[in-house]
């Protein structure tokens, strides 16, 4: 009996590193909630710096990077121990970032400073700072690592930055308050959400020309409240899920025809999304209601709400 208990205890202790997890940053609690993808329970709550927002893992999931906006730092965490190993110089008020495919250069949007900062995560030094529009937020990197996008919320642009020269080579106007950007289809397209504009613009990467724009319409919700923020694609890039902010819905888009196929009701002011490793479940951060909605991807139905900390914002998957 004793031996059985010991084995169980060992298994329990080891479980956080075995089961896939969704990590959620709680902006107003200075914590990260870790959700077990199988049990759909919060297994750990880990303290961070002030006002954590964007979070991302490196490619082998041995490090978690955290934008601790009010600490003016990007924190580097060991996800096994939950320990903050060190801070990276990030520039002022880092909000979102993207890790280049080389796993070495972190591109950070400094919301209060109208600057994008490039940090080398190994030397822990700032490599470059690039002047962008006011309130930079959305960050994306092309799969070949040659282009980084910063979107600026008040300037209403996507800035195309050459990662070698650190120069902006194009600026694309988008609708009001762009929030999030992603390259899709091997980097041939760039999608940008505009929160106040209520649209997603799709750009041809080669020409930086806008080729399409997607709008949304939910019965019983005033168009002004339909505010696209974060979005995620299925691995085949055929379907996009778009968080629509205070409309409290997630839109499902056929990424080929660009038609909106449906809307899923989630918690209040939905910000960002993360898939489970097998892409059967989608987790949404709901800022105002302080919870995470779990969506069954096949049926496109919400299956569970999980209480997390105050103002959950970013989400990242760890297999």
């Amino acid at each position, binding site marked *: 009996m004793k031996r059985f208990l010991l084995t169980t205890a060992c298994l329990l202790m080891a479980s956080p590193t075995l089961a896939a997890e969704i990590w959620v940053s709680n902006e107003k609690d200075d914590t990260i909630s870790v959700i077990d993808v199988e049990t759909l329970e919060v297994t750990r709550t880990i303290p961070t710096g002030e006002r954590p927002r964007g979070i991302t893992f490196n490619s082998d999931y041995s490090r978690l990077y955290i934008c601790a906006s009010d600490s003016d730092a990007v924190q580097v965490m060991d996800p096994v121990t939950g320990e903050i190993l060190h801070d990276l110089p990030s520039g002022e008020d880092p909000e979102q970032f993207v890790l280049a495919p080389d796993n070495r250069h972190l591109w950070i949007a400094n*919301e*209060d400073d*109208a600057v994008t900062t490039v940090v080398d995560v190994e030397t822990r030094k700032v490599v470059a700072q*690039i*002047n962008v*529009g*006011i*309130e930079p937020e959305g960050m994306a990197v092309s799969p070949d690592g040659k282009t980084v996008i910063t979107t600026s*919320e*008040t*300037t*209403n*642009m996507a*800035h195309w930055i050459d990662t070698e020269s650190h*120069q*902006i*080579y*194009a*600026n*694309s*106007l988008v*609708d*009001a*308050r762009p929030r999030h950007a992603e390259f899709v289809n091997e980097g041939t397209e760039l999608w940008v959400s505009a*929160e*106040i*504009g209520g*649209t997603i*613009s799709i*750009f041809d990467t080669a*020409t*930086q*020309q*806008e*080729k*399409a*724009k*997607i*709008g*949304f*319409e939910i*019965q019983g919700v*005033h168009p*002004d*409240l339909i505010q696209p923020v974060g979005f995620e694609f299925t691995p085949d890039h055929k379907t996009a899920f778009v968080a629509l902010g*205070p409309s409290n819905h997630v839109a499902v888009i056929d990424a080929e025809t*660009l*038609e*909106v196929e*449906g*809307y899923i009701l989630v918690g209040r002011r939905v910000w960002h999304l993360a898939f489970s490793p097998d892409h059967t479940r989608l987790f949404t951060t709901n800022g105002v209601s302080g919870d995470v909605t779990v969506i069954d991807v096949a049926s496109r139905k919400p299956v569970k709400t999980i209480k997390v900390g105050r103002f959950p914002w970013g989400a990242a998957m760890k297999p």
Partner: protein
Amino acid sequence: MRRLLRRTIFLALFACVGVAGAVAEARATLEVKIGYLRMERPPRPVLSNLDEIPPRRGIEGAELALSDNMTTGAFLGHDYALEVVSVPVGGPLDEAAAQLLATHDLVVLDMPLADVQMVADMAGDQKILFNAGARDHELRSAGCRANLLHTIPETGMEADALMQVLLAKKWTKLALIEGPTVEDQALADSYRKSARKFGLKIVSEKQWTFDTDLRRAASREVPLFTQGFKDHDVLLVADAHDDFARYIEHNTWKPRPVVGSTGLMARAWFPVVEQWGAAQLQSRFKDMTGRDMTPEDYAAWAAVRAVGEAVTRTGSNQVDVLRAYLLSDDFALAAFQGRPLSFRAWNGQLRQPLPVVNARAQVASAPLDGFEHARNPLDTLGTDQVESACQAFGE
């Protein structure tokens, strides 16, 4: 479910501007000159020595928006300039206006109603003026002008925002204290009108007549003054000059919330507004000026940002192009209030959510859920099209 897909038809101008290199290399091809004209008001004695009116109130809001515009403009080859003219009390406003209008087509005005109308009449139809200082209903109704847009809300919008909150809370019986000045009476009138609109009842009214030093005597005077009111849910105070209202709260005969000019207030902007990225605007303003952003600063900021947004989207600095765009359905100003702001095509008023606040926190953002309108819920605040006697904007 209706699906919406807009294949884009606009080309280079809207979609992408390939400006090579960094900010410094962008070349200025389009100049946008904005004027700011202020008629200074004589200082008015008030009971409290706290809360001085900032000497550059409004102007600094315009300056912040100018720097926002310039950052965007640097990527597009648009260059913005702001010329500020402040006419001292008793100074020649007409001369200053004529001079500024000779070189500027876009001018922000911060002055009382009669001066606004005089300048608008001088300016003619090839100018766009933005009223960022006068809250009078008259300017949005019979006294409107075709060349005049309003970024500061009219008093009635603030009153409606407050009444929506009271109705939502079912605090429907109001007692009203009205100050002695003409402006206090106008404010009380808009409270009365708004109370009727939302079905609230003003059960008792009293004129404020005290000339004692309330800083010392409020705890004795105010209980007696408010003792005679009929049974009410809230006490509404109309004090347009921020004179006596602050001494009412917590000195009343009955324990009732105080609303209106103090306590629970509807304001176009307030230091406690922090949602929807507002904290960024507040901190940018404070870093620049060392003080809090007032509603007048916000109105001036919105005016100059509206110009910036119109220039960015149309690529033009021509008055007719900008005016058509500003008044069109395409215009949407992101202004840290959670909804896009736009101009009412019938009287030029900027539709905007109104924060309803107390000293420490935002209590609500009007329009509240459940206050619906056929056009836009924001039009539940202030003078609606059918109520407006404004003819200048045509059909």
